[in-house]
């Protein structure tokens, strides 16, 4: 990885401040780059940036790199990093905080697609039917066809009922699914709107620039 200097104008301080104001953000400035999170992570070898790097990048406000990295989607939410961080930072929850922001910024990938389908199914039926999830996801992912024998083997054991399980009454769910949006709207100034404007600019400038987060040793 080629080292490049991070220029002040590539840093999006509004993005940084937005994250620092969330419950997980409070401790992020205290990260000492010890790397315990990255060392504990079972999947860091598949990530564009390890959890340690991501925390640093948030400190620096490298919005474009952070939101476009596969890191937040590769994370399996196993919490190994979070229970070990000596500073009490929860990188897991940082990933979770970044996901809806990435989605709102229009980031699309397999994971966001699956999460979207999952949320729709739960909003509509109140429960996640595995058959419904897999069949809906397969419609948009042609590669899933090779999972058909797997699906059949589950069916042969009565493990994949075709009739989706449903709540008797789903009326409350629409309101519940709005919880996330409101929490964000409540945020003072540095919120999403202003951010979206700076995004285009900062995003362009960031293009193609590797973040100097000192990751060579790990990569």
């Amino acid at each position, binding site marked *: 990885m080629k080292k490049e200097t991070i220029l002040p104008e590539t840093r999006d301080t509004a993005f940084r401040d937005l994250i620092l104001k969330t*419950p997980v953000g409070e401790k992020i400035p205290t990260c000492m780059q010890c790397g315990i999170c990255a060392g504990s992570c*079972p*999947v860091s070898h*598949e990530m564009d940036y390890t959890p340690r790097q991501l925390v640093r990048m948030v400190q620096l406000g490298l919005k474009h790199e952070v939101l476009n990295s596969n890191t937040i*989607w*590769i994370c*399996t*939410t*196993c*919490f*190994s990093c*979070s*229970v070990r961080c000596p500073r009490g930072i*929860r990188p*897991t*929850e940082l990933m*979770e*905080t970044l*996901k*809806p922001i990435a*989605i709102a910024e229009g980031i699309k990938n*397999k*994971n*966001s697609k*699956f*999460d979207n389908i*999952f*949320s729709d199914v*739960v909003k509509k039926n*109140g*429960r*996640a*039917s*595995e*058959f419904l999830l*897999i069949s809906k*996801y397969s419609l948009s992912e042609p590669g899933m066809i090779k999972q058909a024998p*797997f699906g059949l*083997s*589950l069916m042969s*054991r*009565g*493990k*994949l*009922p075709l009739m989706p*399980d449903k*709540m*008797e*009454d*789903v009326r*409350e*769910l629409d*309101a*519940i*699914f709005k*919880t*996330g949006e*409101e*929490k964000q709207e*409540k945020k003072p100034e540095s919120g999403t709107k202003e951010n979206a404007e700076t995004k285009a600019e900062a995003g362009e400038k960031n293009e193609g620039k590797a973040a100097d987060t000192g990751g060579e040793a790990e990569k």
Partner: protein
Amino acid sequence: MKYSYYPGCAQHGTAIDYRMSVEAVFRRLGIELEEVKNWNCCGALHVPDRNVRAALSSRTLASAKGLDIATPCNLCYSNLMRANTALEDATLKNMINGKLTNKYDGNTKPKHLLEVIVKDYGLAKLAENVKKPLKIKAVPYYGCLLTRPENKFDSPENPKSLDNLIFTLGAEPVKYYYKTKCCGGPVLITNEDLALSLAKDLLGMAKESGADCMVVTCPMCHLQLDAKQKAVESKYNIKFDMPIIYFTQLIGLAMGMSPKELGLDKHLVPTDKLVARIGR
């Protein structure tokens, strides 16, 4: 003993075997599980907004009617635990309660079924129910979310409760360094290669330990390690042939229940050799 019971979505789908064994064993032990009426999904790890997940779980917790709420699933358990922590933020709590018909005071205690057996019912009492000491070697596999992040019930680094349970049933818990390492389940659909490689590590270590089976506490771990085991085998050209047993099935076997009653014939990795070893 009576609990409010939150089964979670998998019990009505891929974890039918888990469900059968929970029902059979808890009935026999006289622990009453009263299913929450009109329960909703906890959002697993796939409703991406954590505030929405907190709201989904709050709705469930609010319907516990003063009882502790028991759940068989590691994901549901962690979402319920995390909702309680999230609701310490008064703003979020008010906002969530604004959406619930049945308001949540933040005081329901979630318990995983393993905790119900090991702590509340007690291993000494369970030992009295053991008719057939199992005399096998078993891997105690806890997965991620049973002990993390809200580790009120067992250690997140080296938990012991499942080890102790296996021992109580007359079996030997083997030394296993991946007790709490991720199984890869959460990325199974979207990143199968990665998911299979994580499962391969766990299965390989289990094989190396000389165990007759792996014992799990979570439907997602079971799907990954049992239903996907064949895929791992063909991808890496290794034969594991490792039965994956829910802890409730293990209890049932030790209590002398039939494998069929416990749903063991629904597994994808055959369990007949294991059952033969146990001797029934």
